[in-house]
């Protein structure tokens, strides 16, 4: 019993810590695409030499940033919900309800993971490139998005473990 608890607590802490560390690095991606867009604006206007790569690269960086960001939002509990009824429940009721609705979260996230993974494998197999003039490889990037979804899934299960423990034993994990 005590051992299970230790394991589960360890699981929660490791996942949260992992996501926090990743988020700290990920947050810098925004500064990077902001900078390259600024660079593009400057060289186009003042040096009259527009780049070909900034548009594509910043779009890809943006997609990566947004998709990977979901796990950190989950960690902070900032995926907005309609808490009109929810906010009035005692903590245990909330935990029970969250453990139940986790089913729907899993339904969504595992379907998404399955579809995106098969698509990424497909993209790798025929070495997908972008259909712009640059036609740079896209498949690494497609595959990288899978990572963001896995992180969100892990953070979701970590929260679930915590909620379930609280719902059953009425004490913090």
């Amino acid at each position, binding site marked *: 019993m005590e051992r299970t608890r230790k394991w589960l607590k360890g699981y929660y802490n490791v996942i949260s810590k992992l996501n926090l560390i990743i*988020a*700290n690095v*990920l*947050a*810098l991606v*925004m*500064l990077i*695409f*902001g*900078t390259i*867009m*600024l660079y*593009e*604006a400057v060289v186009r*206007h003042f040096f009259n030499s527009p780049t070909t790569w900034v*548009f594509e690269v*910043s*779009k*890809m960086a*943006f*997609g*990566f*940033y*947004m*998709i990977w*960001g*979901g*796990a*950190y*939002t*989950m960690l902070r509990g*900032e*995926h*907005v*919900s*309609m*808490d*009109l*009824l*929810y906010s*009035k*429940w*005692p903590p245990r*009721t909330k935990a029970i*309800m969250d453990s*139940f*609705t986790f089913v*729907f*979260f899993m*339904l*969504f*996230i595992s*379907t*998404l993971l399955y*579809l*995106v993974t098969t*698509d990424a494998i497909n993209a790798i197999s025929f070495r997908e490139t972008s259909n712009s003039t640059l036609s740079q490889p*896209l498949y690494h990037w497609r595959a990288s*998005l899978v990572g963001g979804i896995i992180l*969100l899934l892990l953070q979701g299960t970590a929260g679930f473990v915590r909620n379930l423990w609280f719902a059953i034993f009425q004490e913090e994990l």
Partner: protein
Amino acid sequence: MVDKHSNKSLKILGIFSVLYIVLITTLYFSDMLNPSSTAGVTIFMFSSMLLLMSTGLPIAFSLASVAIITAWVFDPNLIHMLLFQFKDFSLESGKTLICIPLFIFMGFILHNSGIAKDLFDAVYMWAGGLRGGLGMGTVLICAIMAAMIGVSSAATLSMGIIAVPAMLARNYDKRMATGIVQAGGALGFLIPPSIMMIMYAFVAQESVGRLFAAGLVPGVMLATMYMIYIAIRAYHNPELAPALPKDQRGSFKEKILALRYLILPAIIIFSVLSCIFTGITSPTEAAALGAAGALVSAAIRRNLTIKNLRESIMRTLSLSGFNAYIILGAIVFSGVYSGLGASTMIREAITSMDVSPWVVIVMMQLSFFLLGMFLDDIAILFLCMPIYVPIIKVLGFDPVWFAVLYVMNMQMAYITPPYGLNLFYMKAVAPKEITLSDIYRSIVPFLGIQAVALVILIVFPIIALWLPSLLFDYFQMIMYPDLLFSRLDVLLNYPSLYQVLIENPVMLFDAGNMANILSNTKVTEILFSNPSFSDFLINNPDFPKMLLAEDWLIQFPQMKEFLTNHTQFLDAQPMIRELLQ
């Protein structure tokens, strides 16, 4: 007390679930659970969504999982909609939506550098002497903050912390004080840069610049209406919002000094907006510029600590992650809904209905308002707009104007219970003596003003549309003449643009361009009836050469008519006279 509340809200959820089961069973037995029944699909999707959301599951996941379940029930192939929308969102949306994290970041940096406090101090000095001055000043601050920060919560939260206690300490009526801050906070949607306008631009494929310009005038109008309301109330009833005592008003020197903190933010706002409005940079680059400007401004004010920077980028990340999944959830939901054919059915039903288009507009506004009671603004945008915008276009309305109406409506939704986010923010930061019922009542007059403004905008679309049209149809044409030749219809609204044509004879006397002008009957009519333009044409030596080289006399009847009216020209050009006959 707590138990009683929780019991009640659990009971409500229980009733919802029972109702839901009854509803779905009814649908099942009346054989409406198949893709050909639009009503069945609609009821199934929306009731499942509402039920799932009321359990406290985040809206993003509620929408997405309902979409997946619906796909299973009705048409399993539609599961792939999830992948399709995911791919579209993660790659293609970037060209518009990339502004969002950048504008959010810019807002957080400016916000963390203590701008709200400085603004309030300046207003305190300048407006304190008037009855209701602090209140009007707070509206003004909210408008300025709206121009720096694209999200509504920031102004409400910071003014709730700074301005509400300050107003209460000066004996302002508590309902007046909280109402001002909530209504003012919602201005962020309308006044550019507005995150919601960027999202609308993405859904409706409109230009971000135009939408920003369209929001500016109504935003200023609404802020002015709030200020007038406060002034009138305070003038007639000074106890509601008294003026400051004389010794607190500050000397002239203090007043001037209080303004120095406003210089940098003013420069940032001005440069971001002017870059977008003049088309010097794309809105996305302007967002990057604004973010960089905010960093520089914070550095100059010595507020750019590692802690501030870190907090800003982390909050930006969290908010972006939230946006990503709620957008994904909503587009998957509306994708499945359209995939089942429901959108087309609705569109056909509405466009074939024999009612005035205005009835449709009003119905849509009502639907926004009702949905706004339960749903997040982003979710409503991505749910409704894929269905509504095509209808709007078919009915001959301007989607840019419709965006302004939508945003006005969301402002109202933000301060309307039960799901009014500004109410919650206000409650979270308001001083203890302000109760929830105070907050609810405080918004009533402002809600009324917003409703009036909405009606004004519906009746006079020109209020929203004149600025975007002036900027993008007039000034940009003067700056970039080649644009004019691809969008000649603009000449119908701005006949004085003929000067752009005259000033660029090389482009004008290009055979393709001239043929374009001549093939547009209305434009030709305007130009030929303009004496300066026709004089220019007649007197230019290239014109007769082109007339002889191309077959315009035969192709375009207006040309023939035009020339017969200019006998002098024909006298000088006997060959053309011959051709004419």
